[in-house]
């Protein structure tokens, strides 16, 4: 009887054990799932923040080319991402570098790559273990290709910039009106997308070659390639692409995610410039009450570039 009862007891014990193990698995999976969702949401909103910042600080120079300061976008990206996990500070900000091997900001007529460098110099093969890895954005790289013996710089919206040398060394430069999307032609949207994906891939390779102190090997996710190559994203205006890998702030699990945000340029808002008490200030025309002001510009960024600061009366 005692032996019979022992067998009877073993089965419930096993049942409880199996039940608890499967429940713990479920709980771990559910926890990981919500962390992934949170990381995805933070990455999406951060990429969007980088895009908005790029829109705000973009301006068009006298040659008609779009200029942005990509570092401002990176700062916005990092701030929103870390804020989403209620953290910040220099140490965590430095950790973010290791989680983001590739970031790219595409504007109408070129793109900026965030590249890894060693000791603040350009990338060198076999960097020493004591060297400090730094990330910095490249100069703008145009979507240039050779067509019919001429260098033509394509743009996202289909207009293209041409440049050639006329007699006596005079450089002629101009912008043609938008042309239709033609594969292999002057405006080739697919070629631009392929170029951007190639740039992201190059950055990932560069990060892997430089990370001799890290255990993580980066890779370009299949889903990212699908999203970009198969038109899930339309590259018609400013675009930010970002890859996060090995993010482990919330748990020992390393999370990977990527995000793409695309938009058009913003419309201008009138900003007035004036001087008060010997200091240069700016304010939105809608906020500004006195009638007298020096001049009107189209953005606060333009006002700042002209040497004016936000008026504490309105900010």
């Amino acid at each position, binding site marked *: 009887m*005692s032996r019979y*009862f022992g067998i009877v007891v073993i089965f419930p014990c096993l049942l409880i054990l199996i039940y608890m193990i499967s429940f713990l698995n479920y709980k771990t999976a559910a926890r990981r799932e919500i962390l992934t969702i949170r990381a995805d949401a933070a990455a999406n909103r951060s990429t969007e*923040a980088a895009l908005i910042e790029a829109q*705000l600080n973009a301006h068009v120079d006298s040659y008609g080319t779009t200029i942005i300061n990509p570092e401002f976008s990176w700062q916005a990206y990092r701030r929103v991402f870390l804020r989403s996990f209620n953290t910040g500070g220099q140490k965590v900000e430095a950790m973010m570098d290791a989680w983001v091997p590739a970031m790219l900001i595409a504007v109408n007529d070129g793109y900026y790559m965030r590249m890894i460098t060693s000791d603040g110099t350009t990338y060198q093969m076999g960097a020493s273990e004591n060297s400090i890895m730094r990330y910095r954005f490249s100069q703008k790289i145009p979507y240039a290709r050779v067509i019919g013996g001429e260098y033509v710089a394509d743009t996202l919206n289909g207009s293209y910039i041409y440049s050639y040398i006329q007699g006596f060394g005079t450089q002629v430069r101009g912008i043609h009106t938008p042309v239709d999307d033609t594969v292999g032609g002057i405006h080739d949207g697919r070629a631009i997308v392929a170029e951007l994906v190639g740039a992201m891939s190059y950055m990932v390779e560069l990060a892997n070659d430089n990370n001799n102190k890290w255990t993580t090997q980066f890779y370009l996710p299949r889903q990212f390639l699908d999203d970009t190559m198969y038109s899930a994203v339309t590259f018609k205006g400013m675009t930010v692409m970002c890859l996060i890998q090995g993010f482990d702030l919330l748990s020992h699990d390393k999370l990977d995610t990527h995000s793409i945000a695309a938009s058009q340029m913003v419309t201008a808002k009138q900003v007035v410039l004036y001087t008060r008490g010997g200091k240069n200030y700016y304010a939105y025309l809608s906020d500004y009450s006195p009638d007298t002001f020096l001049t009107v510009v189209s953005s606060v960024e333009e006002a*700042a570039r002209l040497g004016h600061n936000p008026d504490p009366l309105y900010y």
Partner: protein
Amino acid sequence: MASFPMKVVGAVLAVLLLIFVPIVTAVEKNDIGIERTAWNCVQNYTDIIADKGRITSDDYDKFMLKLGATGIAWEVTVTVDSRRVYAGSIQGQMEVRHVTTHVFKSDNGGIFNTNEPLRKGDIVTVSIVSLNKTSGQQLAENILKIWSSPSEISLAAMVRNDG
């Protein structure tokens, strides 16, 4: 007839199987549900502020109502980092900085009655911290003596439109 110790083991197992295990499973599942519900609320509320460019008492009340469905009390903090653009040290350049200008806390009361307009480029962060324990946490603390920290969820976004 089974021995007395076996009877005790059998009784303990019966209690575990019939009462304790189902209760633990149910409350733990409930905790996961609470976290997801709270996360969805935070996500929606952050997006509403970022889209509208305003923190309104109406939106806040709706948010608190949905959050109340989780069954536990939360402390809500909304932080606004305003975007400031300054003239750069070199002529023709500029600097962009984000300055924390507003911190709204639900337990201070009344602050959410603001219609403070935000500007495109400002960063808004919504954080919630649980004020009391979930049933799962209570169970773990009272029976297993495992103490857990309060649940904390936050999400930040850049304001998309001028308020």
